[in-house]
């Protein structure tokens, strides 16, 4: 696999294409593609729900722990707090952009548009994990606390979307405290933040003890997990035929680019490293698949889940995984004069 140094001399477009090709031919992407193809071919290949859940718990634990341990190692960067704040602002702000874009580009109802907007302000932790794995394969380091930024970006978008909805007229949906607690203490956030804290506290000693579990087999587990995600995404796409218009698909491809640009801007202001910049771009570009859909079922049950689930898992997730992340690497490298 080419390292970023050998790439950095190339013309940006060459570099994007080369990165995209490298990325496309990596085991994790090919596993995702296998899953999608198997689903579209109507194979009965499937993972038990418990196994899928187990793999996601493993990935969250591993990524959180390693993030925390790397902070313990490098010390807390002055940028940590600023980055968390930037994450909150991005998450709270992007739904407005998404909502406006949806109302202009698509014919989605106000309700559906608000629900979709919440997803795009929030983040996809699987996309984040894939990005860290791609960065690592290219030898690009990043700030360990980006994991905490990811956690901080989960919830604010939901508040924005509900506020948007109450303002645009239709019946007001105040978040009740039960929902608020559910969102803030949802399993993935708690596991991510908790293992981040444990990694931080136990530091490199802790990491050394459990590295054979959370580091060595990590990429292999990610492969199987993305195979499963491909199966679920492919099946979702087949079911969504007719539900999703061409314009909605267009939104699902445009919005990541807008999000990534916002992330790039924020990263420059923060002075993040190349890796950190790519990760913030990826987070901003990604759409939630776990926390927000569940919150929308509770808060906006009339919004159509087929729309937001298809957009988030069927369109934007594959786009980011296959093309988006290499693009963000290339752009960030170019901008930062790598």
């Amino acid at each position, binding site marked *: 696999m080419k390292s970023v140094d050998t790439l950095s001399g190339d013309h940006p477009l060459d570099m994007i294409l080369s990165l995209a090709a490298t990325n496309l031919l990596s085991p994790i992407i090919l596993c995702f593609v296998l899953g999608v193809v198997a689903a579209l071919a109507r194979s009965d290949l499937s*993972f038990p729900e418990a196994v899928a859940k187990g793999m996601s718990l493993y990935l969250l634990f591993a990524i959180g722990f390693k993030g925390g341990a790397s902070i313990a190692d490098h010390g807390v960067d002055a940028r940590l707090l600023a980055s968390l704040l930037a994450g909150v602002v991005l998450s709270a702000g992007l739904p407005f952009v998404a909502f406006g874009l949806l109302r202009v580009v698509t014919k989605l109802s106000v309700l559906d548009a608000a629900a979709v907007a919440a997803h795009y302000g929030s983040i996809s932790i699987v996309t984040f994990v894939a990005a860290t794995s791609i960065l690592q394969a290219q030898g690009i380091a990043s700030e360990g606390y980006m994991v905490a930024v990811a956690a901080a970006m989960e919830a604010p978008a939901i508040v924005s979307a509900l506020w948007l909805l109450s303002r645009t007229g239709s019946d007001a949906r105040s978040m009740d405290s039960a929902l608020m607690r559910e969102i803030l203490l949802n399993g993935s956030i708690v596991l991510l933040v908790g293992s981040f804290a444990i990694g931080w506290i136990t530091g490199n000693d802790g990491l050394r003890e459990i590295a054979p579990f959370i580091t060595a087999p990590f990429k292999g587990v990610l492969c199987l997990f993305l195979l499963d995600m491909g199966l679920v995404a492919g099946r979702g796409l087949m079911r969504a035929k007719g539900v999703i218009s061409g314009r909605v698909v267009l939104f699902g491809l445009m919005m990541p680019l807008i999000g990534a640009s916002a992330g790039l801007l924020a990263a420059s202001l923060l002075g993040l490293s190349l890796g950190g910049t790519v990760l913030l771009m990826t987070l901003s570009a990604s759409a939630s698949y776990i926390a927000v859909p569940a919150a929308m079922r509770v808060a906006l*049950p009339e919004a159509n*889940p087929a729309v937001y*689930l298809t957009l988030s898992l069927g369109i934007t997730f594959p786009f980011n995984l296959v093309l988006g992340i290499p693009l963000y690497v290339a752009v960030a490298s170019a901008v930062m004069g790598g």
Partner: protein
Amino acid sequence: MKMHDAKRIEIIIEAIMERRLTDILIAAGVTGFSVLPVKGGSGRTGQWSRAGQISRAEGMVAVVCLIKPERLDILLEAIFPVLDRHIGVVNITDAKVLRVEMF
């Protein structure tokens, strides 16, 4: 063997609403129920399956509740707010139970 009249209520509801539903049942004094997993299904909003899923947005559970016939209305009124705007089907059948003291 002596049997007693009862109602068997089966509430198939979104998994994400399970906690809210059971909290309301308990608050209404309906403390006896069992929750069964549902692995897939189909409705007006299309087909779904839990296979390989990690998202909690899709998926249902079946809450089975045996109660004395005279308490049926209390139960239905209690759960109505949870069901109202949410996906879910409720069916009630006449049943016989042993050991009436348990309900």
